[in-house]
C-alpha cells in the first residue's frame, strides 16, 4: 500500500519535471518559416506546400522572406528567437552567414530544421535536422547521365563544359563536385570549361555562345551541363541560334540539366535536352512539415532526411512531368 502511494506520488512528481515539448501535440505550435528568394517558383511552391501541410496539422506558420540578404535573414532568426517561436524552419540564403544566428538559436534552446539549402559542413550540432536533396549526389547522377549519353551515341569520350549556378557557396559548388567525380570515371571525358552564370537565363545563353566559339576550332563541344533547367533551355536556344544540332550522335551537342523545371521537361520531350534531375519542391515542403509535426509528437528526427534523386530522361519523363511542372 505504502509502495503504491509512494509510486503514485513519484509518478505525479515526475510529471512536473518532464520538459515542455513533451506536450506532445503539433496542434497550436508556432513555426517561424524563413525563406529566401520568395519569387522563385521553386521556393514559392515549396513554401505553399509546407504551409498547407503544417496548417493541416494545426500548426501556425509565420513566414518571413528576404531576397538573398544574409544580414536580414540572420536578423529574422534573432527576431524569431525573441518572439519565442516553437520551431524555426529555415531555407538558408547563405550557409555561412546563418551560422552565428544558428548558434544563438541553440543557446536560446529553440529547435531548428534546415530546409532545402544544404548546411555548412561542420555545423551539424546547430540544427535538429536537414530536409532536402543531396546536391553532390545530384551532380553525380548528372555526370553519370552524361557518360551514358556519350556511350549511347557511340562516343568513347568528349569535351564537356559546365555553365553553373552561383559558385560562391551552397548548391552550385556541391553539384559541380559530384559532377566532376562522376566524369572522372571516364578518362576520355574531359571537363574543359566551367563558367559561373549565377543561375541566370540570358547570361547562360551568352556564355554558351562564347563557348561554342572558343571550342569550334577544336571540333566543338560534345556536352554542356546547364545546372538549372532554365539555363539548359537557354543553352538549347543558343545552340539552335548557332546552328549546332542537338542530340546524342557524334557531331551533335548533348545538353543536360539537373533541377527538373518545366522548361527541362519540355526540352526532354522535344528531344532537345537529354536529361535532368529531380529536385521537387512539393516533396521537400511536405516532408519538412511532416518531420516538424513528428518532432512535436515527441519522435526523434534523423539528422539528415535526404530525399532521393533520380535522373529524368525521355524514358521516364511521363512519370515526373506533373511533379516538375510548378
Amino acid at each position, binding site marked *: 500500500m505504502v509502495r503504491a502511494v509512494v509510486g503514485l506520488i513519484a509518478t505525479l512528481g515526475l510529471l512536473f519535471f518532464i520538459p515542455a515539448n513533451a506536450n506532445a501535440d503539433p496542434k497550436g505550435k508556432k513555426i517561424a518559416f524563413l525563406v529566401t528568394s520568395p*519569387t522563385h517558383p521553386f521556393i514559392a511552391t515549396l513554401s505553399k506546400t509546407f504551409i498547407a501541410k503544417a496548417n493541416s496539422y494545426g500548426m501556425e506558420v509565420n513566414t518571413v522572406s528576404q531576397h538573398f540578404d544574409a544580414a536580414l535573414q540572420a536578423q529574422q532568426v534573432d527576431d524569431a528567437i525573441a518572439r519565442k517561436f516553437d520551431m524555426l524552419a529555415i531555407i538558408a540564403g547563405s550557409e555561412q552567414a546563418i551560422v552565428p544566428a544558428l548558434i544563438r538559436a541553440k543557446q536560446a534552446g529553440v529547435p531548428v530544421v534546415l530546409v532545402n539549402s544544404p548546411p555548412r559542413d561542420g555545423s551539424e550540432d546547430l540544427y535538429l535536422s536537414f530536409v532536402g536533396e543531396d546536391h553532390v549526389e545530384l551532380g553525380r547522377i548528372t555526370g553519370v547521365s552524361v557518360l551514358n549519353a556519350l556511350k549511347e551515341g557511340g562516343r568513347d569520350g568528349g569535351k564537356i563544359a559546365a555553365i553553373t549556378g552561383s559558385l560562391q557557396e551552397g548548391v552550385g559548388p556541391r553539384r559541380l563536385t559530384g559532377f566532376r567525380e562522376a566524369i572522372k570515371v571516364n578518362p576520355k571525358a574531359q571537363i574543359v570549361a566551367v563558367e559561373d552564370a549565377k543561375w541566370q537565363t540570358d547570361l547562360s545563353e551568352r556564355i554558351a*555562345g562564347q563557348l561554342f566559339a572558343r571550342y569550334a576550332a577544336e571540333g566543338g563541344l560534345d556536352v554542356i551541363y546547364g545546372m538549372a533547367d*532554365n539555363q539548359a533551355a537557354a543553352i538549347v536556344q543558343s545552340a539552335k541560334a*548557332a546552328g549546332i544540332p542537338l542530340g546524342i550522335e557524334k557531331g551533335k551537342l548533348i545538353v543536360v540539366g539537373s533541377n527538373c523545371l518545366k522548361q527541362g521537361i519540355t526540352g526532354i520531350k522535344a528531344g532537345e535536352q537529354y536529361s535532368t534531375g529531380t529536385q521537387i519542391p512539393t516533396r521537400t515542403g511536405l516532408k519538412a512539415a511532416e518531420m516538424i509535426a513528428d518532432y512535436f509528437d515527441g519522435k526523434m528526427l534523423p539528422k539528415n532526411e535526404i530525399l532521393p534523386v533520380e535522373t529524368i530522361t525521355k524514358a521516364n519523363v511521363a512519370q515526373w512531368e506533373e511533379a516538375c511542372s510548378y
Partner: protein
Amino acid sequence: MTERSSGGQNYAVAVAADVLRARSHRSRLLSWAQAIGVVALLAVTLGTPGFLAGPSVLSLLTTVSFIGCVAIGMTLITISGNIMSFALGATVGVTAMVFILACNWLGFGPGLLVGLLFGSLITGLQGLLIGWVRANPIIVSIAALALIYGVTQAFAEKGTVYAEPGIVPAMVKGKVATVPIEFIVFLLSTLIAQFILSATRFGRNLFMVGSSFRAAEAVGVSTWRTVTGAYVWAGGFTALAGIMLAIRYDSANMDYGVAYDYDAIAAVLVGGTAIGGGEGSALRTFAGAMVIAAVQVMLLLNGLRQEWQYLAAGLIVLAVIMLQTRGSGR
C-alpha cells in the same frame, strides 16, 4: 533668379574660363583616348580566336540587345537631367510577366500592346512625379523599384509565368537574314530614339530641360510634359527588352533584368553621354553597349575568369567618365 554681385560674377567668369580651358584640353585627350581605345579593341578582338566566329557573334548580338534596349531608355532619362533610374531592371521583369499573362489571356498581338503600354505607364508615372513636382529622381526610382518588387510578390504567387505553348508565333523567335530578331529590335529602338532626339521638337526640348531646367522654363518649354515624355519612352524601350526576354524563353519571372540598371547606365556613360544631362545620343549609347559587351566577350574568350570582367568594366567606366568634357551636372 537674383543676380550676383559683380565680384561674384567676375569670380564665376574666372572659374568658368578655367573649366573651359580644362575642357578643351580634356576634349582633345578624350578624342585621342577614344581613337586609341577603338584601335586597341579592334586589334585584340581580331586577334582573339573565335571572336568573329558565328556562334560567338550571334550570342553577343542577342544578349546585348536586351540590356541595349534598356540602355536606350536610360539615355533619354539621363539626357533629361535626371541622372538614371534604378527601376528599369525591375520594369523589365514585371513587363515580361505582364506580357506573358496578357498573351495567354488575349493572344499575341494584344499581349504585345499591353506589355508596351504597361512598361510605358509605370515608368511614365514616375516621370510625372519627377517632372511635375520635381521630386528627386533617384529617390522616386528607388521607391518604384521597391514598389514593383513588393506588388509582384503580393500578386505573383508562383513566381514564374509560362507562356501557353504555341501562343507566341515561331516567326518572332528566329533570325532575319542571319541577324537575330532581338538585335534588329535593338537597332530599330536606337534609330527611333535617335530620331526623337535629333529631329523632333520634343527632342530639342529634352536637351534644353537637361541642360538647364530653369532656362527651359524661361523659354516656355513645358518642362513637366518633356520629362514625363522621356520617362514614357524609356518605359517603352524597357518594355521591349522584357517582351523580348519573355518571347525568347517562353516564360517570365522577376529574375529577368536584375542588375540591368548598372549595365545600362554604364553603356550610356561609356558611349559618351554626360551624366549631368543636356547632351548625348542614342547612337552613342548603342556604341557604348557594344563596346562593353565586346570587352566582356573577349575576356571570356581569352579564358579570363568572371571576376576580372567586373573589374575591367569598372575601370573602363571610370576612365571614360574622367575624360568626359562636360563638368558636374546640376
